[in-house]
């Protein structure tokens, strides 16, 4: 059997990588800031008394653009990876994806409603208007997931297979709805919709960040508490029940965490694929399937991967930028294929 990486080594390495990614994400961008300026501006932002009247630009770029963007990337990556772990545990399949319960399709549907039908919400208070897209995506994701969960329930029990099929059906339905809205859209809104579907960390701001950070924090604190229960669930639902796990409650929590997490992530950054699928898979290859390691390691690795992907997205075409969904798929898909081929031999 292949050697596993010691859990502690893995977590330490990922933490260091994470620090590196955060530093690079703060230090690099289309605007080239001298290293020393970045450092001083960073210290000033932390409230330290560093002289620097010449640092307005650096402070602005660091504090208003790169920092929120970095935090958003960390939160989105972490929450997507954790949701991936939750779904792979729920469906007891290492190839499950957070999208399986329909949350992505629902969010896409919500976003399409907001982007194309934005004018229909004429009577909306102005305060809400900038958040309409995020709100619709979040509600869409949560709503569809709730429906899928409801469809999978019978006699007080959740049938995971039925849920999976319901998720597939709802995803198809969501696709049709997005298609319909694309048909109704004019050229410009169509492009907005397309770009949204590719995801981006562009334009991150603190106001949009807080809800996601809270959700991500909640999910990141909650799921690891259920690590052992998730391990047991992998044996099978009845086996887990015989080990004393309240399986119905666990499944409800997993679906809820995923819907909330992916819903919030998609609402803040659009559809970003592959993180939820690849990261947990990779972590398991390195450290084995024990969720007590997989969950914290995926959290870190998701954030790291997201930040590196975002660095590519914002640097490679600068001053323009690439939608990050393209980058994650470009990194993720070949990587995944390599894993598959090597795993088979």
């Amino acid at each position: 059997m292949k050697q596993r990486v010691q859990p502690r080594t893995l977590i330490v390495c990922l933490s260091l990588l994470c620090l590196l990614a955060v530093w690079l994400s703060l230090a690099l961008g289309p605007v080239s800031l001298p290293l020393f300026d970045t450092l001083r501006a960073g210290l000033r932002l932390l409230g330290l008394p560093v002289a620097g009247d010449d640092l307005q630009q650096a402070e602005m770029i660091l504090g208003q653009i790169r920092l929120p963007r970095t935090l958003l990337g960390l939160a989105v990556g972490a929450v997507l990876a954790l949701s991936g772990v939750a779904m792979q545990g729920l469906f007891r399949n290492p190839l499950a994806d957070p999208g399986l319960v329909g949350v992505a399709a629902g969010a896409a549907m919500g976003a399409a409603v907001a982007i194309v039908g934005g004018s229909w919400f004429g009577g909306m208070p102005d305060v809400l208007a900038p958040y309409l897209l995020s709100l619709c995506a979040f509600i869409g994701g949560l709503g569809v997931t709730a429906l899928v969960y409801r469809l999978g329930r019978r006699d007080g029990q959740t049938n995971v297979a039925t849920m999976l099929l319901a998720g597939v059906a709802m995803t198809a339905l969501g696709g049709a709805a997005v298609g319909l809205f694309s048909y109704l859209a004019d050229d410009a809104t169509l492009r907005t919709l397309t770009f949204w579907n590719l995801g981006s960390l562009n334009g991150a701001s603190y106001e949009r960040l807080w809800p996601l950070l809270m959700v991500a924090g909640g999910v990141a604190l909650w799921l690891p508490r259920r690590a052992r229960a998730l391990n047991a669930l992998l044996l099978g639902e009845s086996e887990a029940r015989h080990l004393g796990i309240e399986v119905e409650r666990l499944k409800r929590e997993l679906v809820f965490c995923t819907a909330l997490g992916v819903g919030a992530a998609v609402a803040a950054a659009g559809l970003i694929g592959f993180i939820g699928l690849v990261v947990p898979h990779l972590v398991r290859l390195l450290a084995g399937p024990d969720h007590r390691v997989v969950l914290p390691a995926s959290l870190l690795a998701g954030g790291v991967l997201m930040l590196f992907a975002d660095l590519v997205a914002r640097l490679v075409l600068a001053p323009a930028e690439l939608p990050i969904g393209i980058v994650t798929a470009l990194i993720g898909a070949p990587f995944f294929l390599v894993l598959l081929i090597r795993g088979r031999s």
Partner: protein
Amino acid sequence: MMRRPVALIALCAGLVLSTQALAAELPQRWVSAGGALSEWVSALGGEAHLVGVDTTSQHPESLKALPSVGYQRQLSAEGVLSLRPDVLVGTEEMGPPPVLAQIRKAGVRVELFSSKAELDAVDENLRHLGQLLGAEQQATALATGYRQQLDGLQAEVKQAQVGQKAPGVLLLVGHAGAKPLIAGQGTAGDWLLRQAGARNLAEHQGYKNFSSEALAALDPDVVVFSDRALADEQALQALLKENPALAASRAVREQRLVSLDPTLLVGGLGPRLPASLRTLAGAFYPAAKASFAQ
């Protein structure tokens, strides 16, 4: 005799200072996001100020050499800032809004213009650009000239309509001929057709796909096609090949097919419009073609 050079120097210095003072108020480094807008900036002699444009800015050709800040609706705050612009100009389509807010916060002026297909919008945009470029008079002249050209065209179209009924026209926007979209009511394409004196046979809103049968049933007198992938003659061949139903229409039987530059349809009314409208009108009213050709 010492006085004169001193005075001359003083004068020169004064001039330099005053232009500098003026220049300090006017934005020197420009990023333009919006096809028609970039064209107007160039027409007003401001091309040298442009340090970056978006992907819809395709004319004049020389703009393509400038750094691209991406699609106008998906600008990147840091990307734009990295060009150290004094001003970002764009239409209300420019975005996303949080990015514009960040750019403003960084001390860059963000100036918004109208992308409406209306003459008043052109007037207002030109006045605004003229102010920003310090070329108000030139802008006024350009606006007046533009209005005159279009008004003149209208008069000629009216005259031509005495001798000939307004032709029924379809505007097809396609990609290598396949599945063209038909320009419906409220689109820039529709405005173009009507300005050139045509009746737009398509009555739907926006750009929509038609079945080839529906296309044939409308039986247009003239077909205007705008292809993003192929040039004129090739585009025409591809269009007819992909849509055999069109071949039965009057437009094809009588060889009344006109190609249109697709960049004219994006981002409001631009300076190249009057010339294109004349070509269109000439095709719509063959009898009066000579008058439109001027």
